[in-house]
């Protein structure tokens, strides 16, 4: 199948420090794909290479059917990048920023398009104020709007909600969903598991320039473990007794024992096996992406 974003063996080093180690990515048309990883994992470098801002040291990358190194112009016609740092012109007003971008993108009626976007991103009231006076959330919304002056086939969002207040973060998430519904292919990077879980069709966990794991949120969660049964006891003696029969991971501080449990059947078997040791209470934990993240990075 033809992927919209495809990389093979992508490598990149800065001053001898290897940032990307043979990265392979395949993103299908219309997919929302999240690169999840800690700071310094290589997320931003990947996005900058795909957006033609950096050249890779080795390997190939194709975006929307064109090689980013040999045909950067073709790639640029089909992408938009919203970088980590808001890419807005602080001296111009919000409306001027949008009109400028619309002219550069050859939109037939820049004024009209700017007005539409100001409304969509709730910036009408600030339209004629210089962007330097905007709040962080407003700058981010304008930044997103600037990337959407035309409908790009591929959208790169580098940590789109880092440093945003909850309201602006929700607005960003709404925008991503809407773009997906309109058919765009979206590659986003994030440090937030919740964000990847909520927005992405597939997630690649990136660590030290390599993909540590890849799949849907559900698949990744499954990789780590099933559910965990946590049993709480009244004292050390009971905890020790329970551990002898069930094994599992005891926690002396909370007087609890964690036992893997895949489904109700396992829970019943564990409780039966306890055979009379009194339980204070029990909790059942579903795996989170946090577990995945911590186990992989």
């Amino acid at each position: 199948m033809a992927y919209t974003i495809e990389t093979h063996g992508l490598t990149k080093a800065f001053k001898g420090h290897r940032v990307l180690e043979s990265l392979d990515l395949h993103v299908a048309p219309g997919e929302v794909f999240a690169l999840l990883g800690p700071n310094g994992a290589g997320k931003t470098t990947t996005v900058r290479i795909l957006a033609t801002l950096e050249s890779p040291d080795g390997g190939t990358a194709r975006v929307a059917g064109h090689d980013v190194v040999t045909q950067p112009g073709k790639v640029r016609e089909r992408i938009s990048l919203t970088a980590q740092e808001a890419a807005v012109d602080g001296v111009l007003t919000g409306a001027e920023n949008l009109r400028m971008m619309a002219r550069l993108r050859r939109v037939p009626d820049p004024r009209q398009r700017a007005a539409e976007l100001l409304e969509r991103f709730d910036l009408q009231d600030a339209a004629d104020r210089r962007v330097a006076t905007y709040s962080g959330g407003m700058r981010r919304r304008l930044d997103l709007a600037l990337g959407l002056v035309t409908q790009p086939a591929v959208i790169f969002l580098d940590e789109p909600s880092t440093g945003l207040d909850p309201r602006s973060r929700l607005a960003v998430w709404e925008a991503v969903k809407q773009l997906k519904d309109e058919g765009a292919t979206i590659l986003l990077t994030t440090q937030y598991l919740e964000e990847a879980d909520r927005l992405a069709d597939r997630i690649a966990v990136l660590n030290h320039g390599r993909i540590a794991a890849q799949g849907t949120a559900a698949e990744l969660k499954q990789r780590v473990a099933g559910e965990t049964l946590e049993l709480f006891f009244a004292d050390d003696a009971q905890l020790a007794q329970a551990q002898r029969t069930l094994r599992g991971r005891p926690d002396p501080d909370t007087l609890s024992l964690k036992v893997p449990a895949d489904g109700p059947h396992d829970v019943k078997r564990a409780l039966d096996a306890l055979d009379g040791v009194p339980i204070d209470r029990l909790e059942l934990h579903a795996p989170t992406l946090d577990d995945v993240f911590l186990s992989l990075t």
Partner: protein
Amino acid sequence: MTDSLTFVGRSLRHSVRSVDALLTAILLPVAIMLLFVYVFGGALAPHGRYVDYVVPGIIVLCAGFGSAGTAVAVAQDMTTGVVDRFRTLPISAAAVLTGHVVASVARNALSTLLVLGVALLAGFRPTADPLNWLAAAGLLLALMTAISWLAACFGLLARSIEAANAVTFAAAFIPYLSSAFVPVDTMPAGLRAVATHQPVTPITDTLRALMLDQPAPHALTALAWCAAGIVAGRIGAAYLFRRPRPNG
């Protein structure tokens, strides 16, 4: 072409909105002009018309210094994220910089007019006919364009705004080693050789000749220097703009 116009609009808006930078760019040359004519003028040429000699030199100094300021404007622009957005657009690499250069030439044309006005009040008596004036204006515009493009390269090369500022400051000294303020034959031999062959001398001599209606034997050399500066600066800037920036 359309893109360049869009960026010219952007850079002009930037110029007009940074009021203090604009005032500095326009008033500093006027101050330099007054300094030379009134403070140094009496001592340098007690009986002569030093004002007629020095005004073309000061105009070249101011045009050059103002245009060199493009380095700072470009370096400043490169530190903002918005440039990365421009670099991912399907536009000509030089368009953003064309905006800077045209705005710089516009600012400097304005300040040169002001300097000329003050010079006339201070007793400068040019004898140029309209055709000479036109040629002088053309030469000055070519000079401003050349220095602005070269300065844009330095702005792209500079690691910081401070570094770009230092380059601008250093560039401001180049006219002193030329025929701008004193005739070259008053200088010691080694210095004279440098001063005679550096671009500011034929450019200043030509401007002076045009304004005072004298023969201008170095006009072609002057134009050649400007043309070379424009071509080299324009090509270099386009290359440097696309070059990946360190630690991006």
